[in-house]
């Protein structure tokens, strides 16, 4: 029903209380938001929670969104702030990791040996500090410009460029280390 309508109409309809219109917005953005949350949090259940909360929070505060601005930047900002809050919470309430055997894997060394490059990237991303991981996710998963990333994370554009550059350098280092372990 709403497929042919443009985003602004959907948002106007949502603002007047048509939740189906908001449902269409959710289906358009859910993957982007979930990807952002996965990239930021490196934890799928948390990412699912935050994706859900982002859409609820965005709907409740839709009157604060200016129609002439880009909606994606606005909703990504909400998601990014919620992720940051969740990370702060996780620092105080860390998840106890399950033992490797319970996850159905074997010893860590064998697991690493079986991992491909993408697994190395995933591990590397998990070890990256948040300040590097967040802009890298927005850049390489959400395909955003430096300008948009700067607005979402409330940082200067130059800082974003530096963080992405340093993040990638750190990631290369991490992957290098893992390769050494694998070859050993």
């Amino acid at each position: 029903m709403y497929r042919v309508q443009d985003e602004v109409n959907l948002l106007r309809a949502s603002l007047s209380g048509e939740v189906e219109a908001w449902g269409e917005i959710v289906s358009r953005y859910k993957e982007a938001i979930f990807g952002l949350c996965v990239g930021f949090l490196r934890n799928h259940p948390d990412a699912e929670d935050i994706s859900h909360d982002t859409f609820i929070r965005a709907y409740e505060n839709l009157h604060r969104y200016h129609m002439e601005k880009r909606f994606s930047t606005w909703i990504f900002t909400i998601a990014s702030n919620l992720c940051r809050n969740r990370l702060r919470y996780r620092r105080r309430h860390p998840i106890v990791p399950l033992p490797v055997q319970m996850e159905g894997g074997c010893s860590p060394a064998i697991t690493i040996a079986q991992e491909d490059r993408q697994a190395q990237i995933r591990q590397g991303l998990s070890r990256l500090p948040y300040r590097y991981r967040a802009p890298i996710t927005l850049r390489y998963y959400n395909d955003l410009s430096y300008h948009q990333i700067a607005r979402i994370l409330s940082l200067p554009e130059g800082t974003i460029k530096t963080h992405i550059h340093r993040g990638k350098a750190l990631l290369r280092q991490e992957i290098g280390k893992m390769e050494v372990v694998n070859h050993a």
Partner: protein
Amino acid sequence: MHKDDLEKLLRDTLQQEVSKERHYLDGLEKTIVAELTGRLPRRGWLQTLTQLFAQMQRSHRRQLAVIGITAVIFLFLGIFISERLPLFRGLFSAYDKQHTTTITADSDGGQLLFVMPAPGAQTVAVVGSFNDWKPTLLTDEDEDGIWLTNLSLAPGRYEYAFVVDGRWWGQDPLADEYVRSFGGYNSVRYVGYTGDNI
């Protein structure tokens, strides 16, 4: 690793990670729609007022306008009365409250203390309607630069000013009010009244 390889790898990894975990997103829109059904987005106060006003019938808008105008008239009338009637004076403004306190404290028993800070001055006098504008000298016995004198006065309203080494000082910080006189200011104090009686 080449720069472009890493960027491509990052894109592919993140996209694959999300597509593998896509089951988390199944039915998210339905859940959210169900959760939000019957709920409206919050509104700013301006939007709420505008909408309420827009929804009103014309006759109701007129009634609201009449109520608003009447309220404003009563507000101004209240302020006017509070300034004019002694009974209400001091009820509405903190300034008036301070004002009242000062008068009461200074005027007990018809004694009026005149104080003038004038460090280094040779002579300080007070002139006013209570001494036919003839100087009454203030003293600074402890030589701390604060000149003072205490006068017994009958209840009434008195205009006065200080004369410090021949210069006119018409605005005493302890005065109850000021009046313009001959292009300058004179201070006024009341003796024998409480604030409510002024």
